């Protein structure tokens, strides 16, 4: 009942509807990759190296090994989607726990935690991820872990400030004076109030995670060849930008559109979850 109502409100916003549609398309691509792909991803068609779009039965053309770009793009959606879900999952879960602890307890606990987060924030995003990859070693799982960890400081900061606004609310005092424990207050009163903030921030970070994976793969630290990801495809394309621009254009568009989709959904969610806009 309430879920249906929620979706009806969500779809009333055109932004959110477009965003949701884009994400559903990526989801379908990822789930049914073998059915949608026209070629095997690692099959090399030496008769058609650097094929232009449409040439030799290759919808988006081929790359330097004669591999079908369309099929690689379809399979690449799996990596991008997984990176988005896992990295945002790690970042939002740990970021929320840290943010709630810092915001709720305040004082010295807050100061110590937030100074550590500040220290992490002071590194450039990509540099921190690269440093982490250097320690963990390259690979998809490590890339997701690194991207997730890099998200923690900003996430915990957002959650902390949300917790702090609710910590001093009178309904929290009321619960304490009824004998409610700190854990009770967090679970029953504070979390339900900050969950919209968490969802929105997570949806915005989704796009960031896909770009980060592309960045790490572009630098050769993410997914290892020959498995395709949008980022690694872009990375391979950089040497042939002048001769075969289609190698870069299609994964570029895929990253752009998916990020747009997540950002639009995030904006839409913010509108729907704002109680002031409810009827």
């Amino acid at each position, binding site marked *: 009942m309430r879920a249906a109502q929620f979706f009806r409100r969500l779809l009333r916003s055109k932004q959110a509807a477009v965003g949701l549609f884009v994400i559903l398309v990526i989801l379908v691509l990822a789930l049914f990759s073998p059915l949608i792909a026209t070629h095997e991803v690692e099959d090399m068609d030496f008769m058609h190296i650097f094929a232009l779009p449409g040439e030799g039965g290759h919808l988006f053309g081929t790359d330097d090994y004669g591999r079908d770009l369309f099929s690689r793009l379809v399979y690449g959606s799996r990596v991008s989607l997984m990176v988005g879900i896992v990295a945002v999952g790690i970042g939002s879960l740990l970021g929320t726990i840290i943010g709630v602890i810092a915001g709720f307890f305040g004082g010295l606990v807050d100061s110590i935690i937030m100074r550590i987060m500040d220290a992490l924030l002071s590194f450039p995003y990509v540099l921190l991820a690269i440093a982490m990859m250097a320690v963990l070693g390259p690979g998809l799982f490590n890339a997701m872990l690194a991207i997730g960890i890099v998200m923690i400081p900003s996430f915990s900061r957002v959650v902390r400030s949300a917790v702090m606004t609710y910590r001093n609310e*009178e*309904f929290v005092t*009321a*619960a304490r*004076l*009824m*004998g409610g424990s700190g854990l009770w207050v967090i679970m*029953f009163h504070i979390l339900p109030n900050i969950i919209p903030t968490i969802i929105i921030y997570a949806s915005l970070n989704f796009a960031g995670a896909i770009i980060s994976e592309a960045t790490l793969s572009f630098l050769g630290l993410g997914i290892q060849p020959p498995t395709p990801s949008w980022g690694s495809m872009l990375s391979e394309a950089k040497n042939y930008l002048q001769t075969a621009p289609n190698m870069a254009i299609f994964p570029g568009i895929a990253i752009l559109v998916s990020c747009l989709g997540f950002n639009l959904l995030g904006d839409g969610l913010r509108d729907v979850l704002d*109680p002031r806009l409810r009827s």
Partner: protein
Amino acid sequence: MKLLEIRNLTKRFPIEDSIFGKPVKFLKAVDDVSFEVDKGGVFSLVGESGSGKSTIARLICGAYHATSGEILYKGNPIGRTKTDYRNIQMIFQDPDASLNPRKNVFSIIEEGLRIHRLGSMRERREKVLTILDSVGLDRSTIKKFPHELSGGQKQRVSVARSLILQPELLVLDEPTSALDVSVQAQMLNLLGDLQKEFSLTYVFITHDLKIVSQISDHVAVLYLGNIMEIGPVDQIIDSPLHPYTQGLLESVPQPDPSKKATNEILRGEIPSPVNPPKGCPFITRCPKAFEACTIKPELKLVGDRRVRCHLYDTGGNSDA
């Protein structure tokens, strides 16, 4: 029987230096306050904002630790135990702030039972429905959210939430001042009925003297954290002794427009409790102040009540 005894209760709040966080000054919110509340009685605390009445309420409920002094409940010092939290409940002024906007009426009222792990899910549901009847809300309200209710309904929900734990003492912090005047009377009647029905004891905090005479049997008038006058309500309302109480009573708006308000006494603002005046706290606004008032008066017994004023130095027996 005395349900609640407050002895020499003092609460100071540190005012911290903005850079180093060291307390540089103290705000004395409650200054050596003593009073007793009989079981089944209604004790009112009146005063302007900043008089310390809400601080006393929160001290009784355990939200703050007292700086010094004692709060005895049934003869024992009050502790932060589960039973004390059950037996003493508080009702807040603004139901918009004290009800979680994301919880429906059922979960709001049920909360206390869940905190104290009382009853099965079915028993809790039964209890919530019964209590809704007691506070005069329709049973269909349980599915609604606070923003779908009127101010009076919201305050009824918060009363229901407090009553579900079957408390003995209810501390009401201006429970009617956020409501429309028409709803205030209903709310007061409800509170009066509930008091009889559940044999409750009330500590009633208000700035409205009309309400005091209507609901309570004893009253303490607070000014800058000090009790200025304390005693049976009919005596204090009918013939106030302290110039401050007189001023408060004068400032009650008269429903009859032909009677002109003679608000001559209460001019100006209550001084900052950070820098209270030396001597009598009321000296800065008192129309009857004289030389003796530069020394802080003690609470002195005058008849059945006690008054903190040098005007009654002779005649009354000194209680100090």
